[in-house]
């Protein structure tokens, strides 16, 4: 095979119970940014792992520069000029940038020489980084730079990037894109994995779309709308959530003032004086880059951790009250992690329905569990939110991410709490399910509930929030009407600007 820089033919790979890749054909030219996208479980990761030598296909062949290519390990892949930046970084917080980079190299040069190389590469690609900084002190965006420079130092011909922007502010995304374009101009091929369709349209020259382990489409993403791309991805059309035109906001329902929580570890995030207020019918969106205290805030609101400060629901102080007492009073929560936090993986949907609904739905009066009532409640959640499962006896583990998320969110909504806190409600969820969930949250607000949505997806927040605030380093910015704020302003707040005035200064 000549002409194409990289080519894969009829790649198939099975895992117990699932065909992850099914005769996937795929090729890339030098100097192109090629998008690979699809829903969770569509086989993206498996294909990429195959290319990077982390997995071997059951069948199929690959060629790199026209030669047979079948890496048995990442070392072999790197020797052939293929490198990868993972979504989850493998960095040691307590070590310096240079030490971390040296650890990831097969043959690291002497330290002084390495530091020089890091500085030079950083300068050349607009990725400023001090080789001696401790990684624990860096922002998430800077940590990603460490990973990218680690790859660039190996002079890659093919760079694989797995969901690189999920941890970045909009400004950091722009910087990253500039770097990637420069690399491509110098002849590197980039395989870009993402599910953010707008980004793909902006950055990529070609796209390969996977669904259920198969290639379902190849296209030029610039010629399609984000909507068309999404429909290719999920294989059917769906509607965007609609907010009622006459959304009115009522009296103050949920009010936090000065919530603080010490960090659990040296590099962990605590909460410092978090204050906000949410009216009946209002959706408060809390934006922020991952790891800035989202999980801590969700736990402090749900009652899983004991924060100092005040949290009132309709005037009633909730501090000092446990999670079930808060549920009884009308504050419910849906955590980020579905398996193992919102739901017990090996328990049935009936048992998982009982898990949070015991109090409000009175499912165990006097301690004796009314399992038939729990089962009917599980069934009504499944029915109302179109949860696809064999039945209420199915184990939570057996459901797809989107279906389980619909179940755990629906479980809270059908208990009709007065206020609901959700963390990352559509994380790792297919587009159709995400749209169902967002619509349900909006409907709930319309019925007079106060809703707090913590999310790293800025588009999602702009779509459903009435007010928005940004969490950065455990501090919450002032709360702004969503119509009075721009993406750029939010981006600056996510990057650490203290308030709107500073944002205005930065813009000037």
């Amino acid at each position: 095979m000549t002409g194409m820089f990289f080519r894969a033919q009829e790649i198939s790979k099975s895992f117990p119970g699932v065909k992850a890749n099914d005769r996937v054909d795929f090729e890339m030219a030098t100097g192109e940014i090629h998008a690979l996208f699809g829903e969770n479980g569509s086989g993206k990761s498996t294909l990429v792992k195959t290319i990077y030598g982390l997995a071997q296909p059951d069948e199929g062949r690959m060629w790199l520069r026209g030669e047979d290519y079948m890496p048995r390990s990442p070392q072999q892949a790197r020797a052939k000029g293929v490198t990868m930046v993972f979504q989850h970084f493998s960095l040691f917080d307590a070590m310096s940038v240079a030490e971390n980079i040296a650890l990831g190299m097969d043959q690291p040069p002497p330290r002084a020489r390495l530091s020089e190389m890091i500085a030079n590469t950083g300068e050349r690609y607009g990725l400023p980084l001090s080789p001696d900084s401790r990684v624990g002190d860096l922002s998430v965006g800077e940590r990603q730079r460490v990973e990218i420079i680690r790859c660039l130092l190996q002079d890659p011909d093919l760079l694989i990037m797995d969901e690189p922007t999920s941890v970045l502010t909009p400004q950091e995304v722009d910087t990253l894109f500039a770097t990637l374009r420069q690399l491509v101009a110098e002849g590197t091929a980039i395989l870009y994995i993402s599910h953010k369709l707008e980004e793909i349209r902006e950055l990529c020259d070609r796209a390969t779309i996977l669904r259920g382990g198969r290639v379902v489409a190849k296209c030029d993403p610039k010629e399609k709308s984000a909507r068309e791309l999404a429909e290719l991805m999920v294989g059917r059309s769906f509607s965007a959530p609609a907010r009622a035109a006459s959304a009115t906001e009522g009296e103050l329902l949920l009010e936090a003032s000065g919530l603080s929580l010490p960090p659990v570890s040296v590099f962990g995030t605590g909460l410092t004086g978090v204050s906000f207020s949410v009216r009946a019918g209002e959706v408060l969106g809390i934006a922020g880059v991952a790891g800035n205290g989202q999980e801590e805030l969700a736990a402090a609101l749900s009652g899983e951790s004991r924060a100092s400060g005040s949290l009132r629901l309709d005037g009633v102080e909730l501090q000092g009250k446990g999670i079930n007492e808060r549920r009884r009073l009308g504050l419910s929560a849906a955590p980020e992690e579905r398996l193992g936090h919102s739901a017990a993986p090996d328990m049935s949907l009936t048992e998982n329905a009982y898990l949070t609904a015991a109090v409000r739905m009175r499912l165990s009066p006097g301690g004796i569990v009314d399992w038939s009532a729990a089962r009917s409640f599980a069934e009504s959640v499944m029915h109302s939110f179109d949860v696809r499962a064999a039945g209420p006896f199915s184990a939570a583990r057996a459901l797809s991410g989107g279906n389980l998320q619909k179940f755990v969110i629906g479980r809270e909504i059908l208990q009709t709490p007065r206020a609901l806190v959700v963390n990352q409600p559509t994380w790792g969820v297919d587009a159709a399910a995400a749209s169902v969930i967002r619509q349900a949250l909006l409907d709930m607000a319309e019925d007079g509930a106060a809703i707090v949505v913590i999310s790293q997806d800025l588009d999602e927040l702009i779509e459903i929030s009435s007010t928005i605030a940004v969490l950065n380093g455990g501090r919450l910015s002032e709360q702004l009407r969503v119509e009075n704020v721009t993406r750029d302003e939010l981006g600056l707040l996510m990057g650490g600007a203290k308030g709107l005035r500073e944002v205005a200064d930065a813009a000037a």
Partner: protein
Amino acid sequence: MLRLEPRLEASRTWAALTPVMAVAATMVAGAVMFALLGKDPLVAIRTIFWAPLFDPALAAYARPQILVKAAPLILIAIGLSLGFRANIWNIGAEGQYVMGAVAGGGAALAFYPLDAWWLFPFMLFCGLLGGLLWGLIPAFLKVTFRANEILVSLMLVYVAEQYLASVALGLLRNPDGAGFPGSRNLQTYESAHNAELIAGTGIHLGVVTAALAVVMVYALLRMHRTGFEIKLSGQSPRAARFAGVNQAVLTYFCLGTGGAFAGLAGIFELSGPSGQLSIDFNVGYGFTAIIVAFLGRLHPFGIVFAGLLMALTYIGGEMAQFMLNLPSAAIQAFQGMLLFFLLSMEFLTRYRIRIRRLERN
């Protein structure tokens, strides 16, 4: 080529089959071992598994003995299973068993030779309390100082044994015993004697209590919120916190129940089959019950089956020892095989074996 593949979901069929297959495999491997020792393997296996139950000459003695041995094993194991399901590891049931016997026996002997209807229930209550309090020590240390309950409960076994030795030689020594160590024999103390309910069957109140405990725990796990909390904490601690489970209360409950059941087993044994509080009163029921709990897959009815099976191999093993002149080490090895096969077969519930032809190239 053989390959192991993890199963998506644990196989229910295998989960039900493994104990049966483990017993079958133990019989085969045991037969080989007995043959190597120069005994007729069929006779040996028959003596262990069949004779105690059905041999016309032996069953009359052996059947009641099986119940007598199985009852404390089941009662202790059923209490332990609650904690094990919640990831709370009480390894010290042996100590709780001893302390139950000492507390209950001490209470009864304190009133010797009183003849009163309330003495027997009072003695049982003190036995329960002794085990309960001994079990609550590791619970308190775990909740308050995050001390590892495995170590604490285990070390308390040795404390309990020393205490038993001390009272058997001192405080509770039989004043009419001509200076021999050991307490008065409760079998001869009418109002404290845990006699057989139906003569010749081996059924004493401890057997009935064990059966009741099985049913109660089964109902608790099936129907009560606490049962749900126990299962949830074991499977998914974070989800348990989200469900509002109070981990401290659960720790006290599980270790306390385990201790109380072990204490009851201790006092039933002391006031019935054993009779006398002596240095070697405890024979390892508390440790064997751990095996019984896992052999029964922590399921109440499984534990009944496992307890009876374990008691059968004890009685059958003893018979094989004196009838066929087998060394006691061979019997212990045989019981060890049972455990080994059970654990290795359990692997099959989570993994499947695939036979694959080697790929070309």
